[in-house]
């Protein structure tokens, strides 16, 4: 019973925090709410018997990426987001675009609900099911990642590398050669 209670607490926290990320105007608080949401997700991973994934979630997302977010927000030091004129004239604010966006959002919710309904034995505990060891033991996780899913793993790393090179190219000003 306490496990169910903790589950609902953590998922509630994750949902509320995620809603607050876009729900209020101070970017600093948005970043903090995102961190709280990541923390709640890490707790859910622990409940799923996956301590390594939980710790990786904290180290990479809450510990590293969000520090960079915070760095950028502090550097710009924008106290509040206000609806400027250019914001209202932005192409993303056109009625057609907004309608398409909401349609896609509804589609995503339907898809998610369908996936959850279709997934077999979703109610049981993770431990004892097929593939449970691959989640809870770091050794098994590493082995699965570097054998069965090695293509997806390497493709992701190449993708991130491309993004990184692109960012460096964009950040370099025109005519600057060093």
């Amino acid at each position, binding site marked *: 019973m306490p496990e169910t209670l903790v589950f609902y607490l953590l998922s509630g926290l994750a949902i509320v925090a995620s809603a607050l990320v876009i729900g209020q105007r101070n970017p600093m608080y948005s970043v903090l709410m995102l961190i709280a949401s990541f923390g709640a997700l890490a707790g859910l991973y622990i409940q799923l018997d996956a301590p390594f994934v939980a*710790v990786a979630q904290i180290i990479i997302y809450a*510990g590293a990426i969000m520090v960079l977010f*915070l760095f950028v927000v502090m*550097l710009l030091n924008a106290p509040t987001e206000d609806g400027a004129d250019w914001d209202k004239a932005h192409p993303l604010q056109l009625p057609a675009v907004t309608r398409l966006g909401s349609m896609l959002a509804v589609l995503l919710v339907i898809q998610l609900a369908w996936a959850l309904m279709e997934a077999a034995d979703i109610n049981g505990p993770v431990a004892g099911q097929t593939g449970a060891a691959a989640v809870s033991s770091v050794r098994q996780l590493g082995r699965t990642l570097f054998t069965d899913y090695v293509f997806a793993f390497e493709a992701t790393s190449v993708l991130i590398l491309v993004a990184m090179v692109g960012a460096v190219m964009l950040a370099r000003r025109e005519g600057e050669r060093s």
Partner: protein
Amino acid sequence: MEIRTLVQLGIIGLTFFMLINASAVLVLAERKIMGFMQQRFGPYLVGPHGLLQPLADIIKLLMKEELRPKGADKWLFTLAPVLSITAAFAAFATVPWGAETTFFGLLEQPVKLGIADLNVGVLVVFAITSMGVYGIVLAGWSSNSKYSLFGGLRASAQMISYELSYATALAAVILLSGSLSLREVVDAQAGTWFGFIPRWYLFLQPVGFLIYMVAGVAETNRAPFDFPEAEQELVAGYNTEYSSVRFALFPQAEYINMTTMSAVAADLYLGGWHGPFLPPEYGWIWFLLKVGAILFTYIWVRWTLPRYRYDQLMRFGWKWLFPAAVINLIATAGLVLYFNA
């Protein structure tokens, strides 16, 4: 309640108590060692040889008025020191500090000295330590002061830069021991080579140990890497606007972080509680000695080296320390593969 549960609660309480006292002892030790290095006596008036100085400091800080700047963010200004100290204490939760013991036959089943023993213990320490930076960054931002903001900005850039080298140095030790549990890493270092050299990872990972120590100094914001504070440039950096208890929590968190860093270094590189002469039940004495030696080195370094420039810090971190850590990791991986095959 079972006696075993009580004993384990006692161990948790003892760890907490030791951490709080570690910060008080370190404040005094720092001023005393600094004094001797500068041919002075250091604090000398409160108690014999100034031993009660930390107590006087605490009372003074408790009596001070709590100030909050007018433009400060009310919530984050209060949250920041709490976040700092919480992360500092929580990081010690998976650090073991002694062998299994029955307390001289008092218990039937031996208990482990240390709070929790997780199979990802090393990573948990690292994860919680990396959360500690938010305390400093938020303190800098919420104070609504230019100096504080600069301190917070510097802290976030510095932490990101040195965390990489720190984690890479840790990964090399994990490769050697084949386990992410700190207790198993320590137990893999039991015994000796040729009968007299202790099997410490320090001798297999001399470069890794150096990288760990340098990155550790930078992670805990100690001189010569104390840029978030940098008295001569930023008044007091991120904690400029703080006073009273809220202020006191920041140095306390720093000293506890130092203790955690040293304890993890003793566990990973210096064989933890394994050592000659003492029976395993008294292994924690070795552990305390090793932690004390590393902490002394921390203080020694602080009062010997001047602060770097900020661009030097970034260049050193990215162009020297991180490549060295990566080469160390690859070399270790190759050697482990060669000797295990």
